């Protein structure tokens, strides 16, 4: 069984509220292990006055299908219960949750690997772009070579 829940939203979310519901669903599906990853907006200590906001742009339509494909790929590689991917777009402030993935499986190794895989693919294959705003102006976050390199672990 694989129940894939993909959410792309402007609204803020509480990772704990999502995890409570996800854990109940995972338990009912017979899972013994749940792994959850949450990404948070980090402040920029170097910049004058820090990060005033982060704005995330995405590609409506493609975003949902890209996340769905990544989740389906994970479900073919590992024996998974439910899978959740949530990613925000729009304006965020430091310390806010940006996104979350949750995976469930009978055993912990599959749940850990699947969550790690989802994050690596989401980083480089889902159409999101981050822009950071400080007192000095706005800058698009550059992709890291290490993010692209991370995908080679899964080939």
């Amino acid at each position, binding site marked *: 069984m694989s129940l894939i829940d993909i959410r792309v939203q402007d609204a803020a979310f509480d990772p704990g509220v999502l995890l409570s519901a996800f854990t109940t669903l995972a338990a009912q599906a017979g899972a013994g292990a749940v792994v959850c990853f949450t990404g948070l907006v980090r402040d920029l200590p170097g910049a004058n006055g820090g990060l005033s906001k982060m704005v995330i742009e995405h590609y409506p339509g493609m975003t949902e299908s890209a996340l769905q494909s990544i989740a389906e790929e994970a479900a073919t590689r590992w024996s998974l219960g439910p899978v959740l991917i949530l990613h925000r777009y729009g304006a965020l402030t430091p310390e806010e949750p*940006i996104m979350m993935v949750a995976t469930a499986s009978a055993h912990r190794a599959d749940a850990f690997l699947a969550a790690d895989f989802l994050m690596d693919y989401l*980083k480089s*294959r*889902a*159409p*999101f*772009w*981050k822009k950071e705003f400080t007192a000095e102006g706005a800058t698009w976050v550059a992709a890291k070579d290490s993010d692209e390199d991370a995908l080679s672990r899964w080939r």
Partner: protein
Amino acid sequence: MDVLYFAWVRERIGLPKERVESSAATVMDLVHELSAREDRYALAFSDLTALRVAVDQQLSDFDAPLAGVREIAFFPPMTGG
């Protein structure tokens, strides 16, 4: 076809989306056509290694054929997560 731009590509070209009538055979042909139009396009497309392309909402390559394609999007490498 519809041509979409995201992030700094959108900002350099100055619009998020436009309708383009073109007989370009591949993505690369379309890039050359647009670059020849105006400087803002030439500037946005000056370093293709810094760009990614999606054809009908699937990540693709610059040598992908455009026959039957309805939507093409140009953007920098993704930075989600």
